[in-house]
């Protein structure tokens, strides 16, 4: 499929318009990623209103490039002021910071930029060749398989996160409930609309996203303004490649392993680059000959985690493209954009819009290759960017958020949704409820409910139908494993600790 559409896809990608989109998105992503607290997801959400005025390929290209750059650039504040720009950098922030204190900031960021690019290219190649094959298999999927697949994604989001399972589950429920607002797709009955006509179409997705990611951060910036530390000095960024080849060659196995782990985790619906970075870092420490250096400036750990987070970013697009199920918050946004552009994600899109899909794959490769030269530029400019106080940027960011939320439906109700859900997200985060499951719930709520109701109608209300088809039964088993294994581990730990207490 790839080679068949390559020529036409290249024509879509290799244009001056695309070059401009890639460059401006890359600079935007690098800027947002380099400002601590502004996440890659927030950058992507802020970009969505602009994508409505672009063709499909440039629209997706701008999002992919912004996200890839922001995830890499988030390592810059992690190294300079020990604040990870995104959750993906949190796994190795201590190593980056320790290397900076040891005067090796150039080396640390050099490892980060090259490992991110290698991991990203690896993930993109897997996406290019695995997604079309998977799409062929998924053509046989019915509502039963889609229901279990969606449940698998939601379960992974709850179980793989770092927050308490109960709170993650409640957060997911809140997202699913928000998705219920509006006219029911099966019966046309308005649900939870409080008589407001603006809610009949449901809670607008983009204002919800902007609010849930931006508003909590803005409130924290205004209220806890004295907790933002000052940046360290980078020095000459062009010296960061000195000795880097040797480091990467020594850890070539780590690069391959982490890129693979990252891609697989990315492919798993509901698990994104942050989880990939944490797991790869843990695996790397487990296999390392020097595990004691981890968290104290380990170059090896850095190679692993950086390669994993960018490869996961590409991997997350496999379920997004093939099943329309987001791998993480960023792909959730991309799915929304794909729908707006008439490229309804799912197996059929590979048959009906082959050129566009291959062009999107090419954009992934380009974006990840661009990380190296543009990352170098970003590191050089980072000292300047970090001098702009986040507090001074906050009112301007709010201005963008208002305009972005209004533009979706040219209605002020979008702005109100942004603020209300933003306040909800702030309260959730302050009290240990993760926001990511809520976002996934909002995105996947309709998919889960529609497939549940359709399947129940097909099976005449019987649950047996959900397990009759082999793939559906396999997916149901996977969902059960995701829930049962941690429960068994928890019971085992409780029994062990009670035995120790008694002993």
């Amino acid at each position, binding site marked *: 499929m790839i080679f068949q559409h390559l020529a036409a896809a290249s024509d879509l990608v290799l244009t001056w318009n695309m070059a401009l989109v890639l460059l401006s998105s890359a600079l935007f992503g690098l800027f947002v990623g380099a400002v601590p607290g502004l996440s890659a997801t927030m950058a992507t959400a802020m970009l969505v209103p602009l994508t409505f005025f672009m063709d499909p390929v440039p629209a997706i290209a701008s999002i992919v490039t912004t996200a890839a750059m922001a995830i890499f650039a988030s390592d810059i504040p992690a190294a300079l002021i020990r604040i990870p720009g995104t959750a993906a950098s949190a796994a190795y922030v201590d190593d980056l910071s320790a290397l900076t204190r040891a005067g090796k900031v150039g080396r640390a960021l050099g490892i980060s930029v090259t490992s991110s690019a290698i991991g990203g290219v690896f993930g993109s190649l897997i996406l290019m060749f695995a997604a079309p094959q998977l799409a062929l298999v998924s053509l046989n999927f019915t509502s039963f398989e889609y229901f279990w697949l969606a449940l698998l994604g939601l379960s992974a989001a709850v179980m793989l996160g770092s927050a308490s399972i109960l709170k993650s589950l409640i957060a997911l429920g809140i997202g699913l409930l928000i998705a219920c607002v509006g006219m029911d797709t099966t019966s046309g009955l308005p649900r939870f609309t409080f008589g407001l006509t603006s809610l009949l179409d449901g809670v607008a997705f983009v204002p919800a996203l902007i609010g849930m990611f931006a508003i909590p951060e803005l409130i924290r910036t205004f209220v806890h*303004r004295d907790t933002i530390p000052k940046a360290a000095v980078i020095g000459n960024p062009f010296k960061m490649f000195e000795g880097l080849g040797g480091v990467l060659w020594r850890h070539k196995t780590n690069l391959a392993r982490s890129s693979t782990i990252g891609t697989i985790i990315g492919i798993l619906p509901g698990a994104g680059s942050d989880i990939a970075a944490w797991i790869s870092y843990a695996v790397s420490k487990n296999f390392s000959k020097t595990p004691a250096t981890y968290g104290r400036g380990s170059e090896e750990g850095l190679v692993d985690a950086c390669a994993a987070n960018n490869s996961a970013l590409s991997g997350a697009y496999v379920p997004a493209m093939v099943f329309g199920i987001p791998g993480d918050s960023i792909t959730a946004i991309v799915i929304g954009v794909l729908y707006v552009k008439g490229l309804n994600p799912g197996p059929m899109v590979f048959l009906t819009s082959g050129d566009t899909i291959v062009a999107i794959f090419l954009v992934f490769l380009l974006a990840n290759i661009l990380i190296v030269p543009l990352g170098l530029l970003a590191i050089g400019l980072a000292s300047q960017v970090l001098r702009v106080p986040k507090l001074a940027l906050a009112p301007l960011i709010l201005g963008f958020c208002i305009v972005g939320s*209004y533009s979706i439906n*040219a209605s002020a109700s979008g702005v109100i949704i942004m603020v209300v859900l933003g306040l909800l997200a702030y309260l959730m985060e302050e009290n240990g409820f993760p926001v990511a499951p809520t976002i996934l719930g909002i995105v996947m709520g309709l998919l889960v409910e529609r497939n549940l109701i359709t399947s129940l109608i097909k099976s005449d209300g019987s649950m047996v139908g959900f397990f009759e088809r082999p793939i559906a039964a396999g997916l149901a088993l996977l969902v059960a494993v995701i829930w049962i294994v941690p429960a068994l581990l928890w019971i085992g730990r409780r029994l062990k600790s009670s035995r120790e207490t008694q002993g």
Partner: protein
Amino acid sequence: MKIHDSLIGALLFALGLWVLTTALNYPQLQGQSIGPGTFPGVLGALFMAGGVALAAAGLRAQGMRIIHFDPGWRHPARLAAALIATVGVVIFSLGFETIGFPVGGFVLLTALFFFSGYRGLTWVLIAATFVLAVHLLMTRLLYVPLPAGLLKGIL
């Protein structure tokens, strides 16, 4: 702002109860035992169970006030900035078409800069330039119908 888990649990239970009773009142699909209330009904029941579990966990873990405000909230200027960024934006949205983005946005941004400690003519000019640039970019270049409101006829 931190809220005790027992209170969050109680609120979740109440939410679950409301969702469940509302969902039970929805009609079923013709000839089916399911309908538009099935899925939200399940969610309502889950909220009730989750609320009880959370409240129980909260009651076991003692030593925290029911509602705890972080020290940052006690600064009047910070509180004002946070209120403007939330309540202020909602009030602005209610009169969005009448006031318009240029005037409303300018007032909002200037107030936020003021309460963030960025005072003086420079910051007023930054707010004005930003709002005008965004308005022109959105309306002229991207054709987003941002209302000019009070400045209708001028912009």
